[in-house]
């Protein structure tokens, strides 16, 4: 009956203390909620990029065996490669493990050691290309240790172990971010609920008078809810308006610091839309709470 955004000046629910403070409380909560949500979304985005970065492959190196007799040393090296392959193929998360052929090895080394013919005669280290099964989350460090125990002279590429660890960490962070968003959302909801109750408390007399004058519960709840929603929206928009420049600043700072090494802290169009919906969510929450609270309070009256 009463339009939400242009409340009549003579609305029977007054705009005293509640109206002055509720919007600020909601503004703060929405501000925090938007920041937390943005953080979670952004970490999620970075994570996706990183995950694409780590090819699902790990390289295992095997130092060639040394000995007086080159032929037996080479045989020993081959045995070690076979051993390592057996260990690797035993793991459930290993999709495939293939040793690199010597010509390819030599080609790999050429930029380092020159194209000298000598290279071909060197006892070269062997490499095994290990393809990790999609979606598997292997403990590479443990794998490295197992290999080292089983086969002498084996090592995993350190960099990739590191990167996998970082991704694990980032996934933890992302989960934490989601947790924080949940918490902040709960806190925002609780704030709105409490503020609504507080408003009800402050306006109890007015509500009682309306009741005794013969207003229907629906009318009173509507009047009250309209006020609450108005204030919540007001506060929510303020919170959003303050949060946006803050996000831009953070995003700019992050871009500056990462030096292009990491995917930029960026949000997609849909991410931004989700953020913009936070105040609306708060208002909806206020609407539902206000109506329920007032209805329940009214039912306690005669």
């Amino acid at each position, binding site marked *: 009956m009463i339009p939400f955004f242009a409340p009549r000046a*003579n609305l*029977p629910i*007054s705009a005293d203390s509640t109206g002055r403070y509720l919007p600020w409380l909601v503004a703060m909560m929405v501000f925090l909620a938007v920041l937390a949500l943005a953080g979670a979304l952004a970490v999620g985005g970075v994570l996706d990029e990183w995950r694409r970065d780590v090819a699902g492959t790990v390289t295992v190196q095997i130092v060639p065996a040394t000995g007086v007799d080159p032929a037996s040393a080479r045989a020993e090296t081959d045995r070690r490669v076979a051993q390592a392959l057996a260990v690797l193929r035993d793991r459930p998360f290993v999709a495939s493990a293939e040793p690199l052929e010597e010509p390819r090895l030599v080609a790999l080394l050429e930029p380092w050691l020159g194209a000298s013919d000598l290279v071909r005669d060197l006892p070269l280290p062997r490499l095994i290309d290990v393809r990790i099964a999609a979606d598997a989350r292997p403990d590479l460090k443990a794998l490295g240790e197992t290999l080292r125990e089983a086969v002498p002279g084996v090592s995993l590429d350190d960099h990739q172990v590191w990167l996998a660890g970082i991704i694990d960490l980032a996934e933890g962070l992302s989960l934490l971010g989601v947790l924080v968003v949940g918490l902040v959302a709960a806190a925002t909801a609780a704030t709105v609920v409490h503020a609504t109750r507080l408003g009800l408390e402050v306006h109890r007399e007015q509500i*009682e008078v309306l009741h*005794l*004058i*013969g207003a*229907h519960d629906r009318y009173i709840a509507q009047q009250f809810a309209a006020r609450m929603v108005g204030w919540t929206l007001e506060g929510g928009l303020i919170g959003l308006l303050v949060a946006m420049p803050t996000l831009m600043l953070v995003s700019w700072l992050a871009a500056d610091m990462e030096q292009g090494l990491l995917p930029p802290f960026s949000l997609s169009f849909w991410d931004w839309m989700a953020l913009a919906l936070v105040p609306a969510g708060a208002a909806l929450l206020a609407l539902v709470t206000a109506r329920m609270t007032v209805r329940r309070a009214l039912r306690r009256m*005669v």
Partner: protein
Amino acid sequence: MRFENVGLRYGNGPEVLQDVTFALGPGSFHFLTGASGTGKTSLLSLLYLARRPSRGLIGIFGRDITAMKRDDLPPIRRRLGVVFQDFRLLDHLSALDNVALPLRVAGVSESDIQKHVPELLTWVGLADHINAKPPTLSGGQKQRVAIARAVINRPDVLVADEPTGNVDDRIAFRLLHLFAELNRLGTTVVIATHNETLVRRFRFPRLNLAGGGRLEVLPPLADVEEGAAEGGSPAAPGAMAGVGPVPPASLAARSDG
């Protein structure tokens, strides 16, 4: 309007009202008297449906209130006009908006409101304070706004709790003439008051709450040697005759709240 063996207690306290039984005919006018704290406000609060009795039956407009669901009460409340002892005005609304509230709740058009409300406020002597908010009004002015709010809807039953405690006798008489005029137009009126002069002047029957929460129905109190005793005071009936009895036209004109 019927009370049968009505009793009321607050919490686990003693019964404030005990075996109250009476009936008010449509269009009757009663004073409710009794010492302070005997339960007048409590009795009236049952009448204006702010409370349900602990026991007994209450009938209003031929319906049993105690058996009704709460969703059915608002239409009945709209046929009642109430002046609360502590006014209960909404502090943030102007006098006009306060008085207009029952009309707004009932969905009366804004143009009607703008026509009738200022007229009634002028009649109760608040022409200069139509847009004033209650906190800036004097005690008597607030009381008159509360009365205007109770009668604006031309209720079928008017319940007034100490409606003249904060105004002088001249205004009190004027207000009582308003009630009497409403009564003449068919409204049932019950007024709780401590003002003996009023009770004497307006010879209406009395409901008297004696100690122990029991109610007795008494005949009108005689106004002894009326003219002689207070002829010179501004409250004399002669003085009132000229100002009082003409009710605001709008009030008489309205058909039904």
